[in-house]
């Protein structure tokens, strides 16, 4: 399974590299605010809906290679399911380092979580990776509390997307369709503070609304 996931990831990466140019618009106002807030040494958790994950990977690559703009520096977390392994392989082929969270053995998963928390690395995580989709779990919030993290809700949208019938809900942009990325106001979790799933969900939907508005802007119309 690992070899197949790797081959598929590398093939997808080749597709992303050779895709015809597409505009990527990054609404970065909120990220500038987040960057300012990071003058304190706080772990950054970039969170997104799983549906946006592929769009974000594309946008991240296109921004890094074709623009002065950049998404925040973070290490995406992938699990060791087939989809997670494909995503990790795709990210690495595109030059982004990804971390693995082993899913099947709970002891190994705990060890991986320990390692991530200890390393205080900035990470990216799909908050609804295994469903229910569009909902933030209480365990994500406890993880953010443990890290005393600065959470950056981020969303990516394209005007026209395909949604292949996969186990995970993933949006794939149609060719030559601009992609918009938007960041909502960061949520800072101080030591001892609690974080509610509602707060994270609100941030993610706000980012989604901004990204949708950007894709509907006239200058983003397909040529």
């Amino acid at each position, binding site marked *: 399974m690992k070899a197949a996931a790797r081959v598929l990831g590398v093939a997808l990466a080749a597709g992303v590299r050779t895709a015809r140019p597409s505009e990527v618009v990054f609404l970065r106002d909120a990220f500038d605010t987040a960057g300012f807030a990071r003058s304190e040494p706080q772990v950054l958790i970039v969170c997104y809906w799983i549906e946006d994950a592929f769009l974000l990977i594309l946008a991240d690559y296109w921004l890094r290679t074709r623009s002065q703009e950049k998404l925040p520096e973070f290490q995406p977390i992938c699990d060791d399911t087939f989809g997670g392994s494909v995503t990790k392989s795709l990210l690495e082929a595109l030059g982004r380092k990804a971390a693995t969270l082993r899913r099947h*053995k*709970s*002891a*190994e*998963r*705990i*060890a991986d*979580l*320990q390692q991530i*928390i200890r390393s205080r690395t900035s990470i990216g995580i799909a908050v609804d990776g295994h469903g229910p989709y569009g909902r933030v779990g209480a*365990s*994500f919030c*406890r*993880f953010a509390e*443990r890290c005393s993290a600065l959470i950056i809700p981020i969303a990516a949208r394209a005007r026209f997307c395909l949604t292949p019938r996969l186990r995970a809900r993933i949006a794939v942009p149609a060719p030559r369709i601009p992609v918009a990325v938007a960041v909502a106001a960061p949520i800072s979790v101080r030591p001892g503070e609690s974080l509610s799933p509602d707060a994270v969900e609100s941030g993610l939907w706000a980012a989604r609304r901004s990204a949708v508005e950007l894709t509907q802007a006239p200058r983003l119309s397909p040529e």
Partner: protein
Amino acid sequence: MLDEVETVLEVLATELKVPMSRVRSAQSLRNDLGMDSISAANALFTLEEIYGVELPLESADGVDTVSGIAAVVRRAVERRSGVDGARRSG
């Protein structure tokens, strides 16, 4: 070992927000207690703070049970005591 088991039971009960009487040493964190991995990782960090040790889970076998975690804590405490003893005698 008894002390470690008691402390682990207490920490897990707090993390799970259940009475301590509902947590027993032979129980599986996941199957019996319904604990997810983030809660388990949180409990381990709390134990690290209590004992002042780092709990290494590289050889993660056995940490899926209450008694397994107590054993990991015990080994870490003994290792630290051994290092402290060696430092004192050195």
